[in-house]
């Protein structure tokens, strides 16, 4: 797993992909930080993260579209699948590499928190829960993206299908508002972005943590199964 993780992480930065992602992510967070915090002189990062959740989902598939689709295209999956390494190590290694790049990008945004702490008081509980919640939400998006990438050998198809799912996911809350009750509460319960609102308020709800971690585990597990099943066809 270590070998795959290291190679994958390095390949983000030997190709343009890692830099493109970092640039987009930092421009986006920079703009949001300026608009939410500096412009209005607000010390709370709640709104910053609430807006970021709707926008960041559109750049995260950059990290995942390549993960498995490229291996199939280049036939390097033949190397990985015939190496004495279990499938779960391959999937986890790749998933963690993508997660690592994302966590790195998120770590850079801590500068904003430091900036706030110089000019005002930081609500640490809220900030920490926002970071934890956002990281988990991104983990879900990465897992969905990885799963879509494992289904195809085209990076474009992987990215576009991930976007399709994410658009529905982001608007699930809005769709729910227009529906009668049993459906409304069901959709609100399902929506990953609605769950994030708890974190934004500084609440570390165990059920939300379990929800995110199970979603990540589910899609990682599905990805492993796709890899395993492809050998049978």
């Amino acid at each position, binding site marked *: 797993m270590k070998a795959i993780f290291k190679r994958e992480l390095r390949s983000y930065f030997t190709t343009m992909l890692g830099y493109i992602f970092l640039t987009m992510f930092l421009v986006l967070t920079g703009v949001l930080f300026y608009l939410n915090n500096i412009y209005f002189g607000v010390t709370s990062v709640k709104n910053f993260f609430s807006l970021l959740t709707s926008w960041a989902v559109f750049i995260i598939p950059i990290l995942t579209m390549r993960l498995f689709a490229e291996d199939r295209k280049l036939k*390097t999956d033949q190397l990985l699948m015939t*190496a004495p390494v279990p499938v779960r190590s391959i999937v986890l290694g790749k998933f963690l590499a993508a997660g690592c790049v994302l966590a790195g990008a998120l770590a850079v945004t801590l500068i904003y928190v430091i900036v706030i702490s110089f000019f005002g008081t930081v609500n640490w509980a809220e900030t920490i829960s926002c970071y934890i919640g956002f990281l988990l939400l991104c983990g879900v998006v990465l897992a969905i993206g990885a799963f879509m990438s494992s289904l195809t050998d085209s990076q474009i198809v992987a990215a576009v299908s991930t976007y399709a799912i994410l658009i529905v996911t982001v608007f699930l809350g809005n769709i729910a508002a227009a529906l009668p009750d049993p459906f409304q509460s069901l959709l609100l319960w399902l929506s990953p972005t609605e769950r994030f609102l708890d974190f934004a308020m500084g609440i570390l709800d165990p059920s939300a943590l379990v929800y995110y971690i199970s979603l990540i585990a589910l899609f990682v597990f599905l990805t492993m199964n796709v890899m395993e099943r492809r050998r049978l066809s």
Partner: protein
Amino acid sequence: MIEVKELVKHYGDKKAVDGITFTVNDGEILGFLGPNGAGKSTTMNMLTGYISMTSGEIRIGGIDIIEDPIGAKRQIGYLPEQPPLYPEMTVSEYLCFVCELKGVKDIQAHMKEIAAKTGVTGVLSRRVGNLSKGYRQRVGFAAALAGDPKVLILDEPTVGMDPNQIIEIRELIRSLGKEHTVILSSHILSEISAVSDRVLIMDNGKIAAEDTPENLARSEKRDTVKRMLIRIDGESEQIEKVLDSFGDSFTYERINEDYELTLNADAAEDIGRKLFFAFAKAELPILMQKEEEVSLEDVFIELTQKEEKR
């Protein structure tokens, strides 16, 4: 070392591999020969655990590939038809990655060793994507050697190489065959007969023939008629008169300047001498006299076409 029993692979309705059984002994070089689509690559992909079989059994060094895939894969080095390379990596990065993947202990030293064996030491710092096809093939070969596996499975190892490189790779395969068990495939016959101890001719997912290259060529010789090519300096009427005097020993056909004789099986003995004296008597000098050998190519065409007719 390798035991394959009743191996079957379906792709939908199509039977890609249809119940093949064979074994490969320790230190043997086995050649897979067959036209495109005969099931060579599918068989190799199953041997290496890349795809699974519909039914049948594969044992690598006594380990069943279904029961203990990791243990079986640890003994195999695989060079697929298209070498599995990451274009953005340098050759040394790539080989180190493969070594790490296969759990090699002293990565740097082992990487240098396999690079030297396959002659890629000079390009270690270059990016894989910028290499020529021949070099990519060699890098793929080096990757297959990583971890010093007991079994090497090489799918068309010399594709895209120039004649000098082909000779080098053949020598490499032959030297590796002393310590490793090697299976290689090709649709180029000279390739197979040059290095293999044993040839397995595949067609339509079945084994059409299995023997040493020499035996395959010899066995075919027995059933088919021998051919001889001669070139005589003289008028065609005179030549044909001499040839006619041999009666039903052979039939002949004029091809440009030369005559191709198709000999009858029982009359084939010593026909060369008889021809020589006959033409000497007629004062017609023989410029060329050549027995046409039955090559593996003839065996191959014979076997695979027979299969088609069925």
